[in-house]
């Protein structure tokens, strides 16, 4: 009786993906314990975040992909509308406003867009009767640019870049011509020296600092310098859990959120890094398999985009902490402290599971 209920509840959970996620989340809690200076409060708060996010993921696994496809356009429209409202009220309160206070709850429309934008694009391509034409790609690009520009104006460069990425993956998977991709890369690359020469000295300096933060060690470079020391001093095996001196002695900024990877790498070393990369790879491979096996255009485009966006998060965060990418505010997925990004991330995985398990049901039934 009890096992039956259990089986019914977990019917739509992809066991392999779930195992990988839970294991990574557990690793994250251990790192957070160390990074937060052994704060039980932080751990409890994060466990609550994870519980809520897992529950929402479970709820999404029970939604049929067909239903997801149907709600894609209204969800997208609502998201854009909320972004516009935030934009208007953001101006009233001078500056960056990402939250919309509805009295009872606060929502961050840019988080909705992380899911809604790729869903909308996947929906658009799945509705084409014929192979997508140039016009279709143009329309898809516009559909993508609307939320991206609105979020960039908030201003939230990190999120807007990630959403552009997730949209680009959909467009790429939908079959954007190779010639066009290579052509744009060549044209943009060719224009670079021209743009560069158009900039003022101080603008160039800012861009240089963005890409090489060590030039500004008193400002933006401080994070990077301290983080690379943490990584480098970790060595092969790491200094051991709770023993990272950089992390424990207050030298690492934002060490529970965007820079948590530096704590991990200092305490667990290269070995730990490789294990984490392996865990991420397992999740990504599973995601790509789900995308490859998906039955509808919508499902496969969405699954592909969600998986690659997860990769982008991980890559950008680890790249920025280790000093090969500019510092943009992107958390390490499944590890960094924080509720909102956890929820949108796990909802994404919920969609992946729904695509996988519902296809199975259709096939067997």
């Amino acid at each position, binding site marked *: 009786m009890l096992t039956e209920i259990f089986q019914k509840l977990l019917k739509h959970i992809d066991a392999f993906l779930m195992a990988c996620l839970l294991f990574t989340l557990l690793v994250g809690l251990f790192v957070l314990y160390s990074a937060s200076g052994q704060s039980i409060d932080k751990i409890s708060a994060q466990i609550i975040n994870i519980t809520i996010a897992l529950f929402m993921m479970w709820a999404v696994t029970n939604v049929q992909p067909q239903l997801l496809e149907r709600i894609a356009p209204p969800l997208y429209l609502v998201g854009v509308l909320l972004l516009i409202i935030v934009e208007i009220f953001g101006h009233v309160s001078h500056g960056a406003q990402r939250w919309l206070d509805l009295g009872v709850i606060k929502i961050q429309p840019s988080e909705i867009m992380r899911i809604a934008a790729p869903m909308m694009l996947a929906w658009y391509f799945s509705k*084409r*009767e*014929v*192979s997508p*034409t140039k016009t279709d790609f143009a329309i898809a690009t516009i559909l993508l640019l609307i939320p991206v520009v609105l979020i960039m104006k908030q201003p939230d460069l990190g999120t807007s870049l990630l959403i552009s990425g997730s949209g680009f*993956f959909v467009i*790429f*998977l939908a*079959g954007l011509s190779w010639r066009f991709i290579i052509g744009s890369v060549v044209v943009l690359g060719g224009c670079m020296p021209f743009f560069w020469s158009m900039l003022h000295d101080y603008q160039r300096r*800012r861009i240089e600092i963005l890409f090489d933060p060590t030039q*500004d*060690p*008193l*400002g*933006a470079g*401080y994070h990077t*310098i301290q983080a*690379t*020391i*943490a*990584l*480098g*001093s*970790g*060595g*092969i095996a790491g200094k051991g859990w709770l023993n990272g*001196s*950089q992390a424990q*002695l*207050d*030298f690492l900024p934002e060490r529970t959120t965007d820079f948590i990877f530096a704590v991990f*790498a200092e305490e667990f*070393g*290269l070995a730990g*890094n*490789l294990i984490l*990369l392996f865990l*991420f*790879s397992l999740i*990504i*491979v599973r995601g*790509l398999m789900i*995308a*490859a096996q998906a039955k509808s*255009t919508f499902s*496969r485009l969405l699954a*592909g985009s969600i998986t*690659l966006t997860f*990769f982008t998060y991980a*890559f950008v965060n*680890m*790249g920025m902490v*280790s*000093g*090969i990418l500019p510092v943009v505010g992107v958390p390490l997925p499944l590890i960094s402290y924080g509720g909102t990004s956890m929820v949108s991330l796990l909802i994404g995985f919920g969609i992946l599971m729904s695509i996988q398990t519902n296809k199975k049901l259709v096939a067997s039934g």
Partner: protein
Amino acid sequence: MKSSHELKNYQNEQHSFKLRLTVLGFFVLFGFILLTARFYFLQISRHDYYQTLAENNRISIVPITPNRGLISDRNGVVLAHNFFVYTLEITPSMVKDFDATISEISKLVEVSPLDLKRFKKLKAESRTFESIPLRTHLNEVEAAKFAVNRFRFPGVELKSRLFRRYPLGKQGAHMVGYIGRINDKDLANLTKNNALSNYKGTDHIGKSGIEQSYESVLHGTTGFQQVEIDADGKAVRILSSQAPISGSNIILSADSKLQEIAETAFGDRRGALVAITPGTGEVLAFVSMPTFDSNLFVDGIDVENWKLLNESLDKPLINRPLRGVYPPGSTFKPFAALAGLENDKRKPPFSINDSGFYTLPSSSHRYRDWKPGGHGVVDMRRAITISCDTFFYGLAMELGINRLSSFVHHFGFGQKSGIDIAGEVSGLLPTPEWKMRRYKQPWYMGETVIVGIGQGYTLTTPMQLAQATAILANKGVAMRPHLVSAIADPKTGIAKVTQPIISDKITLDENNLEIVRLGMIDVTLPGGTAASVGANAGYNVAAKTGTAQVIGIKQNEKYNADLINERHRDHALFIAYAPAEDPKIALAVIVENGGHGGSAAGPIARKVMDYYLLGKVPAKETPEEIVVKNPAEPNNVNSANQSTNTNEEVHYD
């Protein structure tokens, strides 16, 4: 494949999708290999290096503050420079017990509660590895005392820091301005402008005048040293460093000798003077009296001095040239005259027969001239010379407020002059629309009448008045006024000279300009309202006197300066340019509660012009200082009812 009408071929699509998915798979693989390579580099190849950095304790990033640029006048007289003082600084991360350390230090060097309060505030705002001053301005004895005991205080250092000094003290304080300690508001501003990291190690920032408005030029670029320090906090090795870039030097167009002469001429009277080169817009003198000593503000002003300055009735802290607003009084007449001439009103040989007052049709209210009984036959030129009110009442009425206002607007009335220091106010040039917005009342004809003689709602700043005079002297070409004439690189000495900018060009008839110019020259000749200003000058002065009412005079009252409280006496105004044929200097003077413009403000202007044009330095305590009022001069221009906003008695429909 190419045909867009081809129905979706699912087989094909699946195949293409999987191919692209594989490409992305390789993309992921490549990304992870890249990261692994980076991890390998940091954690294996460079492990020893980072290991040493982390273990040998920490690296510290020490900012090296740049030298602030100097400010000098047009002849190289230094108005603001830097000097070294000893400071005692503590690096919080290296001190275990603050209270014990500080109480030990205070046995050697006096530490006041104020120092302690400031230290705690700074400590809360800074990173733990930055050194924070506990005491500044240590004298030689204190410095030596601490130096021999230095070993007892790890983390406490004796440093020499640059401080700012204004050698001329009070002179030109409103123009040069001052720097002060960076406060929360400055911090917020720096954060907003993304300049915070450039201010690490800097405690001071420009707060007013040139120091404030040219902060980004004067400050320079902060350098840094990335230093490895051992457990005792001693620097072991410099890992990398970047030298600071000194701030640029600023050369003002002002002449400090001229400034001194002008300020001395004011004596203990309140007021303002602005002198401009009409052809270029260079500001030659920028006087606001009384003034204050900029040096008081550099390291935080003490309570007593602050009270003294802030609560003084003379309001020394107000920047009068930019923020003092006064009715222009009769100095407005040359501009009203041009407005009339350019609109083809009152062109020669037009004249009136002034019987001492002006009345509006359908009203018995008399707008009186300053001269009871009137001036007799008066044409435009003579109207300026003798400052005939009756003439300008009629002129203003015939022009109408809109035409008059829109014409003089081009001379800068009612708008900021655009001078290169912050804080300017725009004064007020009234129009019926403005009055409706402001008071929800219609415009009355009587209000137009008095605008003609610079009374009523019209308000100008001394800066505006000087600029208007300069535009007049420059025949309608408005040059943007500026205090900074060049910005020089302290290393190379190469100066970037400020190019004169034409901000407006008014097309004016030469003949009309000539009538106004002749009228204004006559002002300083015998029979004019400021005859003493032109007497034995050796050059021709085109000028206009003015008087601005402070309190309203009732219709049947007579203005009697002696009976009125000193602070309620009229303001004296004076505008002039010289030489009248080829103007080199244009100026505006306001002496608050000075009485009449010709007698109170005129002599100040004369001294300034004498020095600038002839190099004549006034003898100390010349008899000119004692102003004898010439009975022939209109002492009470405003005894006519210049109804101000507050004492309007008669309304005109």
